[in-house]
């Protein structure tokens, strides 16, 4: 009895430092950010006020920035999940001899610093970049401006490509343990029951991966919404991604502008939370069979 109680205390003691180091700063950032956005502790502010939010929403180009940011996050998350789970599918159902090399490439992709990857994409995909030069070498174009705008474009394609490449690899890695341990056996069963490969993928593989895919999707979405480096390097000045606007306000010499930065980050946090809850509810509907067909 005492040994068990002592063991429980030791278990808590073992886990506490790591948990605290991670959760305390994040909680502080969240609470402080919300507080600062309503004027707490910001110079020149006097009690609670929604001024920062009003300023942000009223600022020129906000609507476009918001739409731009949401679009990038949603498109990137969707594509990353599709591609990442497809790669996991291919790896699980067709083990090949090149596995270790492929795994190396996937891990390399995840690990490349964002700044470096954004720069690499810019050098390759810009209108005077390497791909454009190869196209010119084939005679299809003569001048850089004849090459399509892929980075620094109005749709954020360059940013999306950046996030999708990195995060699809991330999703692959996240999905693999579950894919190898659970999904593979289930897929084999489905195959013997006559399911086509696509049916196996959609109706068995993906749901089996859901416990890992759903949190991962939220992670990717949060990143797409609030990461700074990809839009800073691959984006344009109009529309600007909200994270870039936020950092700009944060570093504004006029300290009362700081509240704007936190208003934006709080907004991004709320959006992420909404999406997370929505995904969770949607997943629960899936996990529950619609009708009890045994009756």
């Amino acid at each position, binding site marked *: 009895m005492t040994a068990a109680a002592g063991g429980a205390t030791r278990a808590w003691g073992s886990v506490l430092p*790591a948990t605290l180091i*991670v959760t305390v700063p*994040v909680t502080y950032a969240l609470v402080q950010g919300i507080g600062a956005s309503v004027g707490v502790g910001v110079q020149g502010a006097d009690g609670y006020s929604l001024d920062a939010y009003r300023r942000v929403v009223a600022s020129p180009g906000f609507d476009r920035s918001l739409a731009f940011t949401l679009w990038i996050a949603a498109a990137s998350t969707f594509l990353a999940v599709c591609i990442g789970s497809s790669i996991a599918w291919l790896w699980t159902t067709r083990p090949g001899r090149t596995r*270790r090399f492929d795994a190396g490439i996937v891990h390399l992709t995840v690990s490349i610093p964002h700044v470096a990857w954004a720069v690499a994409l810019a050098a390759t995909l810009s209108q005077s970049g390497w791909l454009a030069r190869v196209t010119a070498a084939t005679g299809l174009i003569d001048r850089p401006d004849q090459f399509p705008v892929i980075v620094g474009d109005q749709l954020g394609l360059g940013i999306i490509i950046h996030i999708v490449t990195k995060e699809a690899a991330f999703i692959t890695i996240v999905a693999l343990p579950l894919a190898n341990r659970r999904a593979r056996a289930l897929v084999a069963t489905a195959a013997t029951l006559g399911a086509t490969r696509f049916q196996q993928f959609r109706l068995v593989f993906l749901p089996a991966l859901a416990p890992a895919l759903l*949190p991962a999707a939220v992670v990717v979405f949060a990143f797409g919404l*609030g990461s700074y480096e990809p839009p800073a390097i691959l984006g344009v000045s109009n529309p600007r991604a909200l994270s870039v606007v936020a950092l700009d306000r944060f570093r504004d010499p006029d300290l009362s502008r700081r509240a704007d930065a936190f208003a934006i980050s709080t907004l991004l946090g709320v959006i992420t939370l909404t999406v997370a809850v929505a995904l969770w509810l949607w997943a629960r509907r899936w996990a529950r069979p619609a009708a009890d067909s045994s009756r």
Partner: protein
Amino acid sequence: MTARLARLGAIGAIVVPIVVLALGAVSIRWFFPQVLPAEWSGEPAHDLLTASVTVRALSSGLLVATWVTVIALFVAWPAAKVLARPGLRWRGIIMALLLLPSVVPPIGLAMGINVALLNLGVEGTTAAVVAAHLVPALPYTVAALAAAFIRHDGRIDQQAASLGAPPSYVLLHVTIPALRGGLAAAAVLTFIVSWSQYLLTLLAGSGRVVTVTMLLFNAVSGGNPSTIGTLALVAIVPVAVLVALVVGPLERTEGAA
């Protein structure tokens, strides 16, 4: 067949941009529409690599990442050991809490940490940057180590203990060697998370702690392929080497057959 092509396309999509950077690093003149540089030289790259700014940034990044890795491993080890135990009631909650830094939009997290460090009066120091990096890095350390502990058969530790070995001996000569693959993977993952940081370093370090990623970011507006390529390679190559070293253990974490 399509899978083959897709695979080659995917590998190309990753490798080609890096090669383009490498070509730029050793170019003196490289303009549109030249597919390969018109003039090559290793000199600008060499000068940049030996410049004191670069050397300082490299050592800062290495120092911070090493500290982050060491501290993270120390803190994560007991946590991972406990989390690997089957049937731990709070495991789900703890794992969810550890996920927290990753589901907060990075700009919000970075600004918040900056304010926290400011209020503590430590912002701008290397220690502050190390502390800041621990927040996104630690979840990966714990996850990787926990995976290693799950695969570890604790009975060999018990056997050693029952044969009379003191706990420190068991730890150093039985447990750690048995876990060295997972340990290596966890260490590399943590190191890479810290090495790759830009925004956190910028804000926590108040611009006083300069790493390679920051030099690279600043070099972008200059548009010099040699500078950009060289700095980008300095950022990427250590990562590539580390990944290559631990691909085996990483694959085992994923349960590859």
